[in-house]
């Protein structure tokens, strides 16, 4: 199964055998292209996808030691994402399917993040509870049948990664903000400032990160933003980065633990770019509620956007009989 992923700012192609063996996975990150703008610019992303997608297709085949006529099917992210970006991957995938006379499988990007647990550990037991946290998404899912994730909760405002990015910008840590904040936090005191954990109603599995982001802003500029952003020394920035990161990661873990307590999940997994965060992984491993359940921390390259997860889920869906028409649509929203 050849997989294609172009939903946002990564151009990725991968080949996966039997929905579990990654034969090749190539990813081009557009971070450097978007860095001058402090965020993803859809038109910049779309142009880059068109430039990179076919060279990466060739590279994926070469790394797998395969030729196009040895492929069995084409999987492609068709939702959710930036429409102009999704359409580039879809056009390539449809043309490959049409020309090679292969089945086309449309894959939901978020379902694929959840499904990455099965690429990391194919024998993961169901039900599986998954947290997907990235710059665009923060949601909890319960999987009773592979490929069919049921959403239990989602952010009501900012995604966790978006909050981390914005906090990093406030602290002058650069772009992409999440990794920059994590690097700064490594030398900071995570108890220096206690940011409130916004948990919403006691039984809610939804998230909210706009409040903690505003709390950091008010901490820096005073209530109502009456002061300019202060010049912080390195130590002060590190303390704020560590404290802010702790608030976000602790909130994610508490919600995941609450969901675990309310379900019969045997496996708990994480996915999305925020799942690369070391502190999140430490907190999850130490959480008492999650002990006794099998934790799946996919390798870092399976957490951020990649095409192996698309080909992996696509392969599974193909085996289940799924086929999509050439008229498959790009859709901005996901499950």
């Amino acid at each position: 199964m050849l997989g294609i992923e172009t939903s946002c700012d990564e151009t990725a192609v991968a080949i996966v055998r039997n929905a579990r063996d990654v034969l090749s996975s190539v990813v081009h990150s557009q971070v450097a292209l978007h860095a001058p703008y402090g965020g993803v610019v859809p038109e910049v992303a779309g142009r880059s996808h068109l430039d990179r997608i076919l060279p990466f297709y060739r590279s994926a085949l070469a790394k797998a030691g395969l030729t196009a006529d040895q492929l069995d099917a084409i999987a492609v992210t068709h939702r959710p994402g930036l429409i102009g970006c999704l359409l580039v991957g879809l056009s390539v995938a449809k043309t490959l399917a049409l020309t090679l006379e292969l089945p086309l499988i449309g894959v939901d990007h978020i379902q694929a993040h959840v499904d990455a647990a099965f690429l990391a550990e194919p024998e993961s037991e169901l039900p599986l509870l998954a947290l997907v946290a990235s710059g665009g998404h923060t949601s909890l899912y319960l999987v009773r049948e592979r490929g069919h994730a049921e959403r239990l909760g989602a952010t009501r405002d900012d995604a966790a990664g978006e909050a981390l990015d914005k906090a990093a910008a406030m602290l002058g840590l650069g772009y992409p903000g999440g990794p920059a904040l994590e690097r700064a936090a490594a030398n900071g005191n995570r108890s220096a400032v206690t940011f409130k954990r916004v948990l919403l109603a006691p039984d809610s599995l939804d998230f909210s990160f706009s409040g903690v982001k505003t709390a950091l802003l008010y901490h820096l500029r005073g209530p109502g933003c009456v002061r300019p952003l202060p010049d912080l020394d390195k130590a002060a920035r590190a303390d704020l980065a560590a404290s802010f990161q702790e608030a976000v990661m602790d909130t994610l873990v508490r919600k995941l633990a609450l969901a675990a307590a309310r379900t019969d999940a045997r496996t708990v997994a994480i996915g999305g770019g925020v799942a690369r965060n070391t502190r999140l992984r430490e907190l999850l491993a130490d959480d008492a509620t999650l002990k006794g359940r099998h934790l799946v921390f996919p390798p870092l390259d399976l957490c951020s956007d990649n095409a192996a997860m698309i080909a992996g889920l696509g392969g599974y869906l193909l085996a289940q009989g799924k086929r999509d028409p050439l008229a498959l649509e790009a859709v901005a929203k996901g499950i």
Partner: protein
Amino acid sequence: MPLRLAVETAFPTVSVALDANGTLLEPGVDLSARRAAGLHAAVADLVHQADATVKNLDEVWVDVGPGSYTGLRVGIALVRTLAELVDVEIKTLRSTDQLARAVQGQMADHADFVVCLDARRNRWYCARYRVASDGLELVEAPTCLTPEELHTTASGAEAVVTNGAAPPLDLPVIDAAVPSAGSLFELAHLARVDPEPAPIYLMAPV
């Protein structure tokens, strides 16, 4: 006779056509619905009607703009991927060529005219053409201009051809119909062979 596919995605109306041994097959439907989701299926239907497959194609003709950025990328991604797998010759034309061809019959011999398309942000894509004795001649390739620059480029032209909003020029305006993919085949003398076609953006992405 070669089997030739044409892809037109630069305009709000999207279309494909197939020249099968001299017979033009054109669905005659706008494929722009649902963000041109039906484009590839329409290609499949056309080659099927010709008792062929895409692997039998000899040439692919494509409009590379200027025009809808997203539309251009969808069409060019299709064409590039086809060329990756099939030994086809790719021929490219400009969207302004298409509009110029549409009004050529309304222009006097040796007349100069400009073709303008709204580029948004108060800019215009503009190209200049002349009706020559042996067909349409491209005098100035498309560029992206401010209204002030537009006046200079259009100086001495007899008309302005557009498709949609009229540019701020004191010239007779000819509103051309949206061109179809099939009309690309009528522009052979302006077509360029390009194994790796790229969109004509003319504007920075931001």
